[in-house]
């Protein structure tokens, strides 16, 4: 069989044609953007491009814009973004699991692979029994954060504007870029961590935060006249109370760290894409879209993974301390 000459599975003329088109588009977009405009103005050249060739100056708003009201409840564009993610995830899950087969088709195999991968992650960290218990929480966080980030890269998010009572507003926005959603996820994570901690260890779980035993023992020794021992006991008791309170505080700090990590990364990613698309419109943003795909996946793993670790620590670490 004669060897086919070409590049990347295409014939040379096709590859050369594509490269030329790519370069022309790139040069055109560079010149049309403010970066190229600035560079040309140095040489005294001023070109007038049609409005559809240029991208508006980005004007990011941290608070989400209200799109409409439902029963007096404001529905923001980020809530709409969350709904789209929910509809997508539930719809795909329903289509896949509607007619499940023991020998799976392609779609079922892919979905099972994804879910099975998260399940394996849970069991490898928390063990077989606890991993199975934590899996729905971890998987929900992972799927939502990941798919919300990826779906927000589709055309329509951040580009469709509508007129509302408060003025011009974007119709859709990635839910992760509105701080309310990362906060809601962090609160969910917190609630499940405390729930499983209390469920596994009962009131002993609270002993991690309110540990007065040593202090009371020291005070008792003081009343018994053992001054030297009591001072030592009271001192270590005070330290134990302080570390307990710090432990309690760290539970709440987790909420803040989880919230701002996700919010910061996702918002920064969105602003980066807007800025890149503004500076050099069209093709230049493509590599950054790839980067955002990766960041979306990484943030999903980090959020879900940290929740899994907090859950595992909540039911195990304190148990070990009490031995």
């Amino acid at each position: 069989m004669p060897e086919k000459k070409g590049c990347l599975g295409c014939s040379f003329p096709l590859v050369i044609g594509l490269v030329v088109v790519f370069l022309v588009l790139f040069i055109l977009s560079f010149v049309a953007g403010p970066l190229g405009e600035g560079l040309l103005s140095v040489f005294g050249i001023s070109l007038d491009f049609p409005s559809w060739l240029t991208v508006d100056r980005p004007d990011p708003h941290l608070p989400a814009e209200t799109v409409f009201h439902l029963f007096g409840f404001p529905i923001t564009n980020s809530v709409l973004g969350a709904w789209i993610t929910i509809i997508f995830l539930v719809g795909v899950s329903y289509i896949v699991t509607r007619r499940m087969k023991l020998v799976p088709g392609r779609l079922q195999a892919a979905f099972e692979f994804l879910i099975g991968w998260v399940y394996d992650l849970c069991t490898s960290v928390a063990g077989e029994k606890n991993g199975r218990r934590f899996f729905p929480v971890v998987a929900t966080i992972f799927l939502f954060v990941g798919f919300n980030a990826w779906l927000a890269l589709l055309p329509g998010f951040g580009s469709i504007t509508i007129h509302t009572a408060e003025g011009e507003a974007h119709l859709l926005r990635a839910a992760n870029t509105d701080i309310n959603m990362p906060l809601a996820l962090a609160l969910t994570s917190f609630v499940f961590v405390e729930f499983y901690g209390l469920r596994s260890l009962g009131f002993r779980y609270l002993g991690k935060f309110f540990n007065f035993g040593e202090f009371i023992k020291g005070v008792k020794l003081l009343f018994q006249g053992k001054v030297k021992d009591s001072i030592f006991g009271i001192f270590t008791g005070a330290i134990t109370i302080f570390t307990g309170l710090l432990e309690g505080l760290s539970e709440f700090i987790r909420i803040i760290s989880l919230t701002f990590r996700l919010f910061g990364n996702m918002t920064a990613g969105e602003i980066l894409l807007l800025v890149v698309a503004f500076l050099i419109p069209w093709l230049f943003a493509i590599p950054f879209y790839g980067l955002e795909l990766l960041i979306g996946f990484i943030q999903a793993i980090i959020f879900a993974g940290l929740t899994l670790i907090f859950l595992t620590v909540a039911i195990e670490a304190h148990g070990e301390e009490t031995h």
Partner: protein
Amino acid sequence: MGGLASLGINLPTLIAQLINVAVLFGLLYLVAYKPIMRMLDERSRKIKESMDNTEHIKQQAERAEDEASKRIEAAAKEGQEAIARAVRTGEEVRQGAQQQAKSEAEALITRARSEIQRERDEAIDQLRQGFADITIEAAGKVIDRTLDKKTHRDIIDKVLKESTTLKKG
């Protein structure tokens, strides 16, 4: 609170997002996790069952192979024995037939011999009879008188008898 508001935190949206998370959790639990975990468990169970069955079948096949080789060995042994027995029987039959043929032949020869002996004796008797008559006649002619035939004959018979007895003996 102004700082938080500038970040975009507001209670109604937070509640809406919490509800969204709860709804997503519930729906995914029903349409994704539950059926998929059931299917994964079912598949694990089937694979385990298949592996157990394979092991069982393998053991059965090994047992059957052992049994078959044992049977083949026994059959071969039996066959060898049957062949040896047949050869022995054949040999016995051959020897019996040979023996029978030999004894029949011997009996035939014996019978033939006794027949020959009997015919010879008869011939000798006839010859002797003829010879006596000729002798008497010859003697009568020599002495030119007729001997008492009866006496003469008795003498000759006696002589012949003695000579015959001698010959036979």
